[in-house]
């Protein structure tokens, strides 16, 4: 095992927190626990046998916390968020929202998917009104609220457009306010920016933090992008694969408000080095041998490097 950069003494430890960061974490932990996951397990049964996807997952989030979940593919992070959303049955343990066990989907947990999932037959405004209407809001009330939410993300001009007329970033903004319009206790986001190009993704990250600051919402955000996790999150839940287990719950030592410039700060790099180390450890066995050395198929004199 190669020593990580932090072990080599080039970076501070990811556990070192400046005073204001530590105070912030104290404040977060003093808030109510919104979501508590206890001994959560998930087993898939198929014709070839049973697969343990999640094993003994425990964590909790506080009100208005931003929790990121990272892990290599196969660690069950999507399964985890789908169980939290109620789209998948859990095999064991429990999920408590405000101390009450939840089962099945409900408006108290909003969800944003990677594939936008806007209803193509509804205009942008009607998409945002959907949750309000199925929960019994009157038409004009729902419309007023929907327009307010669209204003929040600067899309009021597109209220009467159809989703196919919007860009990927705009679609995802609509999907976010569609989920928020229901005023859920918690917003679950499953790699929401995974399909966006790098520039749009960066702008959406800033935008999401803006929204999060302005409203009372707790966010659980799944990503495989470590920079994104550090940039957005208060804490990062690292899962290991086969079966999915909690490897570590890291407190991000980077100050808020977050800016793109922070990605060269020592504390940012320290957190990233730790994440890379954890993920490297857990993927090493399955992945490293999978890539063979490539035989040379060009002229010896013709080097590209």
């Amino acid at each position, binding site marked *: 095992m190669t020593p990580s950069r932090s072990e080599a003494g080039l970076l501070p430890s990811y556990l070192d927190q400046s005073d204001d960061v530590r105070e912030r974490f104290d404040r977060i932990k003093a808030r109510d626990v919104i979501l508590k996951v206890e001994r959560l397990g998930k087993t898939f049964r198929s014709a070839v046998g049973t697969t343990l996807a999640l094993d003994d997952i425990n964590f909790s989030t506080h009100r208005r916390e931003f929790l990121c979940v990272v892990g290599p593919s196969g660690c069950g992070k999507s399964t985890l968020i789908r169980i939290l959303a109620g789209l998948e049955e859990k095999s064991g343990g429990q999920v408590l929202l405000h101390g009450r066990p939840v089962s099945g989907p409900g408006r108290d*947990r909003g969800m944003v998917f990677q594939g936008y999932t806007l209803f193509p037959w509804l205009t942008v405004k009607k998409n945002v009104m959907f949750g309000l209407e199925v929960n019994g809001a009157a038409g004009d009330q729902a419309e007023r609220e929907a327009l307010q939410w669209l204003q929040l993300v600067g899309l009021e001009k597109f209220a009467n457009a159809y989703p196919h007329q919007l860009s990927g970033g705009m679609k995802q903004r609509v999907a976010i306010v569609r989920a928020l319009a229901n005023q859920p206790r918690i917003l679950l986001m499953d790699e929401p920016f995974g399909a966006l190009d790098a520039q749009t993704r960066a702008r959406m990250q800033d935008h999401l933090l803006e929204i999060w600051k302005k409203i009372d919402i707790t966010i659980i955000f799944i990503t495989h992008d470590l920079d994104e996790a550090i940039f957005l999150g208060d804490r990062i839940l690292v899962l290991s694969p086969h079966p999915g287990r909690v490897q570590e719950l890291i407190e991000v030592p980077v100050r808020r408000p977050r800016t793109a410039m922070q990605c060269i700060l020592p504390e940012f790099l320290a957190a990233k080095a730790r994440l890379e180390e954890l993920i490297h450890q857990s993927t090493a066995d399955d992945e490293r041998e999978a890539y063979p050395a490539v035989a040379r198929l060009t002229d010896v004199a013709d080097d590209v490097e």
Partner: protein
Amino acid sequence: MMKLFQLHMALSPRAKFLIGVLSFALPIALWCIVSYVPAVWHPQVLITNAGSTDYLQIGMRMDRQAFDSEVAGAKAEGRAPPEGVRSNPIYLPSPSEVAAAFYQSFTTPPPTQDGEWLHQSLWHSIQIIFWGFLISSIIGVPLGILCGAYAPISRLFEPFVEFFRYLPAPAFGALAVAILGIYDGPKITIIVIGTLFQQILIIANTTRKLDGALVEAALTLGAKNSQLLRRVVLPGILPDLYRDQRILLGWAWTYLIVAELIGTTSGITWFITQQARYQHFPNVYAAITMIGILGLGMDMILALLSRRLFPWDRSLAKSN
């Protein structure tokens, strides 16, 4: 030229239009050549002058070989030979004859007293199709959607429907007459039997193809069972459902002729069989053409309508 034949190449609007015109122009051109160029095919001779052969009459058609030997025989005996022009068999009228018959069918009253105008026959046929398709849809559309949406309903209905759709609808003709009499009842029944079972399966499949993520999104927004069906499944499949219905309506038309032969022959089928009996083949072709024009016209109107009805549907931009 090579560029036109690249796989999945989109055509320019101009090329699309021109090739579309060709699709009709080519078969008509072929028909014209066979009809108007005597050197092509024309296996018979239309007698214009019987000459000395007493069994020939003006307007009769006979095979060219028989005619040639008749001419040779007459010449050898020094009699006046029969005269004639090369012609096609009576069952292949020329485009102009069919066009004239087409026009006349709307302008001249039917020759026999019990005869019907072409449009009257057609109108009767359209009514049969309408009722058959309507009854089939009233049962088939909801049942198909329910089968696609709920696994138990699918398991309960689909195996039997799969079995039943292999039974040829016309086989139920005699039964339908025995139960429903000889008029329109059994004809409509045949259309229903021919359409319904395919309809249930096709619509069930269309419903199953709905993006499951949309249903999940609705669930996380708090939608419950009946709301899911009404607010997500139904609008989600509507453009595809509409396309299915267009295709099924075409199938219903193909059952029409068989259906109308059952019991008392009626509608366009009656017109066609009647005209064929009197060897008025131009009329037969005019009637067949009329069915094609009606079918294609109806489908084009429905296609245009779907653009108005489903402005969000992206697959529309690709097709048509």
